[in-house]
């Protein structure tokens, strides 16, 4: 990899230990992914925030580097483990709360915007077409590359952190022109967001860095997010292109049978003890849509709704929050279905959700069973 004189100097440690470490990470990542140089980025979005995933090692590391490390570009943050406004309702242990707050504090000290959201593309303004960013959250990277005309690699939490500190990223894979070698042909009729989540999950298994998808009808925002979330969960693929692709592309059909395979892999229960909506977190239009669909009906069991804090505040002002709370919803900001300790296998056997991403992590990390239902099915069967 070719480095500029200034980058070489930083790698040698002439600009301090933090920058030296950050450049070591970028060079190691760049060499591993065949990048020939580093390029400037304008926005970093970091993962590695939830104490449930990074543990004591991560907490100690961040606490240590936050003394000196400062981010150089706009930097936003993935969800953490809970919503401080209502964490006392969930019986979470003191140690988790204090370690999580230490992580929050470390990021804030470094100058990171504490957005605690996995949908940065929905709550921040999107920079101009072709802008280089570094998004560590998989659904956000896919959304940025596929819908927002931004460019990001599939980053690790460390490469994105190093990019935040240096303002640089390796020029590899998806930052360059990419030609997928697989085209997935969508063959399922009348798809809902659950179908698109399963399509994304399938695509992530089939594709390598990017895939073509053909046969898609017009999709709403919820369906696009579901597809990005599904794809980010199952593989390393971080972009889809719309269309048939080159004639020499391998063609793979996503039909009823393939959909059933994904469903059978992730759906392990007939019914759930509670419902979760939001993985990726819900945006304001999804909250508004839900409030409209409920129309006076109430959930017959617990329903947890995950959204960014800014969305929760907007929803409160507009009055959606009142309607959702009346219907029995618990509205949580700053966290997400994935890996929140607020859902615990000691008290919950199975969760109903319309999210493929949520289902994967509920099953594999939280260790509970999953009951998959689309939102319209949830409203029809779980509310009165």
């Amino acid at each position, binding site marked *: 990899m070719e480095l500029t004189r200034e980058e070489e100097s930083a790698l040698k440690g002439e600009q301090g230990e933090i920058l030296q*470490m950050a450049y*070591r990470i970028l*060079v*190691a990542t760049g060499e*591993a*992914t065949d990048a020939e140089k580093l390029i400037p980025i304008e926005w970093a979005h970091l993962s*590695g925030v939830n104490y449930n995933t990074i543990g004591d090692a991560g907490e*100690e590391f961040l606490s240590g580097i936050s003394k000196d490390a400062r981010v150089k570009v706009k930097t936003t943050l993935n969800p953490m483990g809970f919503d401080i406004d209502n964490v006392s309702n969930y019986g979470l242990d003191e140690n988790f709360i204090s370690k999580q707050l230490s992580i929050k504090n470390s990021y804030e000290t470094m100058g990171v915007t504490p957005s605690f959201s996995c949908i940065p593309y929905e709550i921040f303004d999107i920079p101009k077409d072709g802008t280089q960013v570094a998004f560590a959250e998989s659904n956000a990277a896919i959304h940025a590359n596929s819908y927002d005309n931004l460019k990001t690699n599939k980053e*690790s939490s*460390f490469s994105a952190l190093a990019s935040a500190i240096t303002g640089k990223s390796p020029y590899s894979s998806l930052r360059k022109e990419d030609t997928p070698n697989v085209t997935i042909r969508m063959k399922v009729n009348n798809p809902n967001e659950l179908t698109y989540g399963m399509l994304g999950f399938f695509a992530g298994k089939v594709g390598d860095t990017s895939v073509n998808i053909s046969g898609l009808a017009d999709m709403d925002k919820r369906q696009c997010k579901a597809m990005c979330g599904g794809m980010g969960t199952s593989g390393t693929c971080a972009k889809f292109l719309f269309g048939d692709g080159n004639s020499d592309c391998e063609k793979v059909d996503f039909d009823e049978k393939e959909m059933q395979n994904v469903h059978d892999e992730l759906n392990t229960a007939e019914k759930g003890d509670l419902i979760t909506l939001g993985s990726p977190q819900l945006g304001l239009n999804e909250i508004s849509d839900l409030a409209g669909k409920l129309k006076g009906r109430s959930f017959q069991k617990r329903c947890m709704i995950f959204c960014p804090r800014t969305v929760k505040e907007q929803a409160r002002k507009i009055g959606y929050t009142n309607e959702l709370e009346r219907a029995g919803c618990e509205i949580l900001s700053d966290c997400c279905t994935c890996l929140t300790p607020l859902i615990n296998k000691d008290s919950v056997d199975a969760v109903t959700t319309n999210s493929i991403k949520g289902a994967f992590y509920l099953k594999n990390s939280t260790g509970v069973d999953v009951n998959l239902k689309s939102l319209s099915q949830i409203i029809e069967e779980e509310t009165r």
Partner: protein
Amino acid sequence: MKILVQGKAQGIILKSNDPINFLGTVDKKTGIISDENHDLFQKSIKDCILVFPSGVGSSVGAYTIYSIKSNNSAPLAMVCSKADLTVATGCALANIPLVIISDEEFLSIKNGEKISLDTKSSNPLVFLGN
């Protein structure tokens, strides 16, 4: 050969033919491998030149590499036959030299050999015998 993290080290090779999942199967304090299905089960990776195919599992495993280094239980250097981002970033965080070698070179390396590694040298790996 590809150099992912620069540096110098000299030591005894500990070779594994199994990939290593750093998150969960390597003890952060002692560097001992706790996975009973692993060919290094109950061995410590401390102060050796660790030769293994690649890392597997969660990228959070990079923090484990950083932790074992902080606890003075890390290998002196790592040598893999396949680059993976968990080991690459973990070694970068912890400043542990890391090189990627070919499958043929990997096959020819023997456990217990003494080796000298210097990524700045034109011949980065020098075998010093048993």
